[in-house]
Every structure is written in C-alpha cells, then in structure tokens.
C-alpha cells in the first residue's frame, strides 16, 4: 500500500464502488469507500465517482448526486489539484455537476447496453493515459442506458481544440466511425477532461478491465492516474 488514499464516493444506488476499491487495491493504490453524507476525508488524495444508479437515475442520470453537498467538496478538491475520476454514473454526475462539460443522455438505441468496446486514447500526456501511447486502442466494457455524449457544436469544437477529449469509441483498428459508436455520442466521445487535466470522466468501466481474473486489463492504466 502506498501513502495515497483515494476516496470512492458512495451514493444510494452506487454499485461499482466495491469494484473500484478492488481494482485500485490490485494496483497497490490505497482506497476507501466514503458515504456521501460523511463528506470527503481531509487526507483524500484522489476521488472516484463510481458507477451505478445514484438516486435511481431519477430526473436525469447523475442529476441528484451532482447537487449533493459532497460535490462542493469534490469541486474544491479538484481545484486544489486532487485527481478526480468519474466512471459511468460518476461521469454523468461529473457532467451534471459542472466538473466536466456536456451531458451523457439516453443511448441512441434507447436501450441499456452492456458490451465490450474499443477506445482510442486521444492524449497520452495526462495522468489517466500516461500508461498508453497516443492513438492506442484499448478494450474496456460499457454498461449504460444513458451514455450518449451531447454538447453544443461550439463547445465540442472548443473541447476538441483544447485537447480535452480523452477517449473516443473506435473499432479494433482504431478507426473512429459511426459503426463503432455504441450509443450515438457526438464525435464518438467516450471520455473527457475537465477544466484541469487531473479531472476526467468516461462512460466505459476501467475498474472492470483491471483484475486479470475477470478478463482484460486494459483499464489499469486509467486507474494508475491515482498512483502519481
């Protein structure tokens, strides 16, 4: 165990919190689950907003959790340089809270989709992608009904030109195409950076692609963003 303690924020309806804990532990990163009403521990050196269905996805996925008091603390921590990673429901929370831009909404298929996808790493010079090469293709699963990335064309252009698109859905060869877009996300966006590159959200589940016993391990590099 290192000296790093990552807080995994559990809301009512979170269900990937223990997966995240197991995956981080496997990488030697100390992590603990924190109930949202208890607030962030002072010694927090990282924050995971985990997957699940916080508040039953009422109103919009992530909308309620994004407005709970602990998110004020998460925003403050992020501004202090504490790394923050939102996965799946945590990505929806991240966007609803303004940590990241845009919104993840109903899949083009209008269905819940649970399947492995390929992602192209758009940048390798962030804490979340330092383990990869730019343009590398990794395989990570998705499991969501509301993962379609929506944002205005103007804001998307700004995100792209400022290098804040971190992952795009692609095929096995790394080609970003409509056929490889599982949910209708604009420009195949699967994950983005926030205002700081220490803040990232993505719909695919790196914690489900970390333990060798349960399949691929391509997601490990993303979680290693907490190890720096």
């Amino acid at each position, binding site marked *: 165990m290192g000296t790093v303690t990552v807080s995994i924020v559990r809301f009512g309806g979170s269900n990937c919190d223990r997966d995240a804990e197991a995956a981080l532990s496997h990488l030697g990163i100390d992590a603990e689950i924190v109930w949202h009403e208890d607030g962030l521990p002072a010694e927090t050196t990282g924050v995971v907003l985990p997957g699940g269905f916080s508040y039953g996805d009422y109103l919009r996925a992530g909308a309620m959790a994004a407005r709970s008091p602990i998110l004020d603390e998460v925003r403050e921590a992020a501004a202090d340089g504490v790394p923050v990673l939102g996965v799946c429901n945590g990505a929806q929370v991240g966007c609803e809270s303004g940590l990241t831009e*845009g919104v993840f909404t*109903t899949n083009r298929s209008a269905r819940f989709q649970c399947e492995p996808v390929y992602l192209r790493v758009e940048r390798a010079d962030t804490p979340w992608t330092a383990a990869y090469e730019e343009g590398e293709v990794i395989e990570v699963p998705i499991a969501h009904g509301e993962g*379609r990335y929506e944002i205005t064309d103007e804001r998307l252009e700004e995100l792209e030109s400022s290098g804040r698109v971190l992952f795009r859905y692609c095929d096995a060869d790394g080609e970003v195409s409509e056929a490889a877009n599982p949910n209708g996300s604009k420009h195949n966006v699967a994950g983005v950076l926030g205002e700081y590159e220490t803040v990232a959200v993505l719909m695919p589940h790196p914690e489900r692609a970390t333990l060798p016993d349960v399949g691929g391990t391509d997601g490990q590099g993303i979680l290693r963003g907490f190890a720096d």
Partner: protein
Amino acid sequence: MTAYTATVTVRLKHGVLDPEAETTRHALERLGFDLAALRSADRFEIDLEADSSDEARERAGEMADRLLANPTIHDYDVEVDER
C-alpha cells in the same frame, strides 16, 4: 401570500436526438396510427405560496435552472396559475 401552481415544462432543445420519443412514435405506428412526428417533454407541477405570480414564476424558474433542466440539452417554460 397566495397559493400558486407553477407548471414547468422541460423539453429537449430543437435538434437534440430523443430516442425515447422515437421509440414511442414507432410503437404508435405499429398500432396503426399515422403521425408525422412526436416529441416528449417533462412537466413538473409545483405548488407554492408567493406574494405575486411574478415571484412564483421567478422561483420556479430558479428551480428549473438549478435542477429540473440541463441547459446543455433542455429548454423550459413556466406557467403560473392561482390555486
């Protein structure tokens, strides 16, 4: 203070894909209905006490701004009636 009902209707902005509405449209067509388009919206009916209908409208608008609507994809309107 007067009792009002503020009705907030939240719609997807023009041009934002609405897969649930599309699915509903297909289902109606399967039932034999003929329709050109279908849009869905969320409607919130908020009972509140306020000094004036303007105040009731303003407070309901704040609720929409802060929670009920997401400005990235939604427009909304507010109607206020005495209850």
